[in-house]
């Protein structure tokens, strides 16, 4: 990945060859220990003030990537360069202090808030823990944050169960924003919400980004939401990025067969959807990430598979300006036509 690289100062996060493996028991009593290849050599860069989207199905490794980048689970190997420093090596107090600059919002606002603490205290907690500001300044910041995420001042005295799902997610966002981070990871942050509430939260996140220059990593399985929200998109499949491009490039001409399948599944109803589904929607479920076979991870389900795909792992290679695809046959197979005419 070397052409059209943005200047270094522009890059907030540079993830380099990130690997996360989990042990998965043995095959039989004396067998070889198996490993879940949750994330297997993922590299990407996120520009300051932009939104980097990761899309994929369950087991693709998108959430594991996010959690490893957030240092919530240990990375097996790889660099996570955040604001010029490799935070993968940080430990103890240094890591704790670094955390104020990167925060995460989870999918389920019901289980990510302590039910016994009042909303004001929940938002204040990161400030207390990180020792940010004087107690008085912290109070002022809490009220400001609640207002910013669209909660009334009296919300500070309520407990999480007294809020609706959407309000709870607003609370999680206020909490994530409290230490004034540069990066917020939204891990399926709107997936559990009703569509009307989802729109409110997406608009809120966009407003906060405009006002504060926030950088987001936005993880979702919903291609429509990803397109609406993200500047750059990475498609993950079984622990690997299979395609990466700026959103307009990706949605005008995706190049990986798996991306076509995702697009076919998400296309709006109509003749175009029917055509894409018939041609590109893959059958079955994603295979298990435990000890994946050599070769392309998508080979088992790919309609365009050839012998080489089963033997040799394709690398993420340049397919156009800022466009990277991991497919042996990227230049041979014809991409789908999105025009409505045929």
């Amino acid at each position, binding site marked *: 990945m070397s052409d059209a690289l943005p200047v270094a100062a522009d890059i907030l996060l540079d993830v380099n060859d990130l690997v996360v493996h989990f042990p998965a028991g043995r095959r039989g009593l004396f067998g070889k220990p198996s490993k879940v290849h949750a994330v297997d050599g993922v590299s990407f860069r996120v520009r300051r003030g932009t939104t980097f989207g990761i899309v994929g*199905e*369950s087991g693709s490794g998108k959430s594991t990537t996010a959690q490893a980048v957030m240092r919530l689970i240990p990375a097996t190997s790889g660099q996570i360069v955040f604001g010029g420093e490799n935070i993968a090596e940080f430990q103890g107090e240094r890591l704790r202090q670094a955390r104020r600059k990167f925060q995460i919002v989870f999918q389920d606002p019901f289980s990510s808030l302590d039910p016994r603490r009042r909303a004001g205290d929940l938002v204040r907690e990161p400030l207390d823990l990180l020792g940010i500001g004087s107690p008085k300044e912290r109070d002022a910041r809490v009220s400001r944050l609640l207002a910013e995420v669209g909660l009334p001042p009296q919300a500070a005295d309520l407990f999480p169960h007294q809020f*609706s799902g*959407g309000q709870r997610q607003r609370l999680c966002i206020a909490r994530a924003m409290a230490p004034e981070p540069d990066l917020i990871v939204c891990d399926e942050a709107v997936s559990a919400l*009703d*569509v*009307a*509430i*989802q*729109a*409110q939260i*997406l*608009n809120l996140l*966009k407003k906060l980004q405009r006002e504060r220059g926030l950088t987001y990593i936005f993880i979702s*399985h*919903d*291609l*429509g*939401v990803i*397109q*609406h*929200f993200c500047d750059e998109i990475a498609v993950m499949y079984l622990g690997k990025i299979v395609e990466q491009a700026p*959103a*307009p490039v990706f*949605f*005008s001409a995706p190049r990986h067969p798996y991306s076509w*399948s*995702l*697009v*076919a*599944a*998400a*296309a*709006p*109803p109509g003749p*175009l*959807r029917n055509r894409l*589904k018939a041609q590109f*929607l*893959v*059958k*079955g*479920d*994603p295979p298990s990430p435990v000890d994946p076979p050599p070769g392309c991870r998508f080979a088992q389900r790919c309609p365009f598979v050839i012998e080489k795909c089963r033997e040799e792992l394709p690398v993420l290679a340049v397919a156009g300006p800022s466009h990277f695809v991991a497919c042996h046959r990227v230049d041979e197979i014809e991409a789908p036509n*999105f*025009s*409505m005419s045929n």
Partner: protein
Amino acid sequence: MSPVLSVQNLSVAMKGANGIVPVLENLSFDVAQGKTMALVGESGCGKSMTALAIMRLLPEDFVVTSGKILLDGEDVLAAAPQALRGLRGNKMSMIFQEPMTALNPLYTVGDQIGEVLRQHRGLGRRDATEQAIGFLRAVQIPAAEKRVHAYPHQLSGGMRQRVMIAMALACKPKLLIADEPTTALDVTVQAQIFDLLSELQDDTDTAIVLITHDLGAVAELADDVAVLYAGRCIEKGSSQEVIAHARHPYTRGLMACVPHLHLGPGLANAQRELEEIPGMVPPLGARGIECAFMPRCAFAIETCRSRPQPPLDIVDAHAAVSCWRHQEIAP
């Protein structure tokens, strides 16, 4: 031809500490053989309660306060326990959102599909397993003779939902209720399950009540749609008509706030600000007789505040809407 399912003025209420609270009010709809009716709305609007009322599976404290449910001419609400057992499984069955919690982890999927056949068709164990394999094939599970001996945890989410569908359709019911059948599944699997449902419907002529929040699924699968808001039906009609010319501000809002995927020529529209419906569905007990959507509605006027919610106004053969201003605000 009389409809397979006829729900007439159904009202459901919850008995709570503060008396009786309405949950569903005056819901009516018919589903004909081979047709699909979609119930749409946000959570808390009464979609699942409707399904549970039809199946007579309402949780404790929830009661049907008025109305009739006719399944193939039989009065479901009046059915005695014995008769009810005959209706469930044989004439109507249901698939749920979470296929993991709906299957018994201690029995093989073959046993569970077979159980339906043994109970309702009086088949022996061997014949039941034999037929179960056939059903697994019908729902396109590969290597069905092997998978019939698998336990639920050995199957993926998509497979489990296929097993649920196989169980639900084992006795060729007249009515299938599908409550958010794909919400817990991956997107590519969702598309496959929807395709499977419509293929099976073509073969068996089952009537389907599809409960969903996804208007895309409505456009693809449903013949008719009822939009529910706070326990009331606020718009009803053929799905084509409702999606092309939504009349109620709530229906219009629901469609506008979803970020649809834009491809090819429509690409430029993708990053516009989403339209919002402010606020949220009023909780149970906080619903007056006026239009429940009024506090969130951009078109609300004094009439909406001071008068009770209007009944469904039949616009034409394909559309009915409950809104004081639907004619004035029509786009």
